């Protein structure tokens, strides 16, 4: 990965969410969320289990169609063309039944990139270069998630979505992943991260979206959120009283 910041990287900002709602089987899962995500800090989405965090992230990325409301990227509604400039790392990554390098090359080829040197550099960045020819399905959990991040980063996304990428991972992998997130943030990629890990949120967050029962309880800068949350739900959550 180069140090050069792609100038056009941030042209998908701001991300505007306008009155987004989604129900499944008569259960309201996302309830009239309105917010604006901007700035080059990492946006962390937090909230108790079942708050709708993952679903909200999928709505932002365009994997799930909301019942009503709309998401805009720099004023544009979502489209495959916009999604092509975003990446998403899932909690349980889908690993293709090929080598580590072939996994990466598959993604690169989807964006017309076939320079294998770039791929090898990208693997090195995530400490996977020694495993390049290894069958990807034999990797450990941490290695798999680092491969998933490498796949997400190889296309140099303007926006990177991550859904609890480090839950149950070894500390070294968590550290590698976090350092890479900081790095690409500096290079201009907008990062939106769902996490349960308070420490991780404190280390990375620029601003925090707190969701509860599908509603946006609060949207604050990280410093004020952790020190002095506005909503009662967030207070309870931070005090460890609101997990489920």
């Amino acid at each position, binding site marked *: 990965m180069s140090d050069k910041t792609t100038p056009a990287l941030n042209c998908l900002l701001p991300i505007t969410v306008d009155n987004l709602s989604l129900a499944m089987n008569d259960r309201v899962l996302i309830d009239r969320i309105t917010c604006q995500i901007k700035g080059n800090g990492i946006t962390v989405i937090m909230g108790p289990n079942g708050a709708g965090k993952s679903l909200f992230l999928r709505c932002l990325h365009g994997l799930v169609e909301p019942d009503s409301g709309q998401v805009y990227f720099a004023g544009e509604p979502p489209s*495959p063309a916009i999604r092509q400039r975003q*990446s998403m790392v899932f909690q349980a990554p*889908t690993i293709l*039944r*090929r080598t580590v390098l072939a996994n990466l090359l598959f*993604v690169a080829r*989807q964006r017309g990139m076939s320079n294998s040197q770039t791929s090898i550099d990208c693997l090195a960045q995530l400490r996977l270069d020694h495993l390049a020819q290894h069958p990807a*399905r034999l990797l450990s959990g941490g290695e798999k998630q680092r491969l998933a991040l490498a796949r997400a980063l190889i296309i140099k996304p303007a926006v990177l979505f991550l859904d609890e990428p480090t839950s149950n991972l070894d500390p070294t992998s968590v550290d590698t992943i976090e350092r890479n997130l900081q790095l690409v943030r500096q290079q201009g990629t907008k990062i939106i991260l769902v996490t349960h890990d308070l420490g991780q949120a404190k280390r990375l967050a620029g601003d925090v979206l707190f969701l509860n029962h599908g509603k946006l309880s609060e949207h604050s800068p990280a410093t004020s959120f952790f020190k002095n949350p506005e909503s009662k739900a967030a207070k309870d959550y931070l005090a460890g009283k609101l997990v489920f």
Partner: protein
Amino acid sequence: MSIYSDSLAAAFGLLATADSDLMEILYLSINVSLLSLVLSCAIGLPIGAILAIRQFHGRDTLVGIFNALMGLPPVVVGLLVYLHLSRSGPFGWLGLLYTPQAMVIAQMILITPIIIALSCQVLEDMHEGYKDFFDSLVVPKRTALVAYIIDARYSLMTVILAGFGRAVSEVGAVIIVGGNIDHLTRVMTTAIALETSKGELELALALGFVLLSISLAVNFLAQWLKASAKRRAYV
């Protein structure tokens, strides 16, 4: 049990001396079944793929029908093919009844649903697993399908071998449409039926062992492919 040892000895004897009649029958069996397998795959795999990745009205019904057709009784297939290929039937002018081609057609009808239903199942599982990742990456459907096929190649191989196993061991259909004509349409299974009806039970069982060894070889091949896939973590 002497019937087993006698028949096994007879089977080995037939194979060891490369008995010319047996070789002819074996050759035709494998030829007919391979050809029907190739044609069934040419038809069945694309249909299976479409059913696996496309959602359309009536899709589930179609999948259900193909699943049910996997259990088609061979005799019924034989009868239907006979009625169509008979000189008095709609395709009688082709003169295909009592030819190896007729047997190929009957076997195709038997195994195409197997290829469709099983490949659909395999590719559907791939689709389920890869869908989110490919949606996120905006992978075109065609590329996705190619990726499913590449990644599921060992499972698909097993599907194809299952089709071959069914084709080569089937008797009810080919005896009706082939006629079990010596040196023309006699295959392993119809030869076994014939020897049984002549009361040559030992010879029939010996032929059965030969057929079984083909099935075993095919299944060992499938097992070996699976095992090597597992070793290389493609499963």
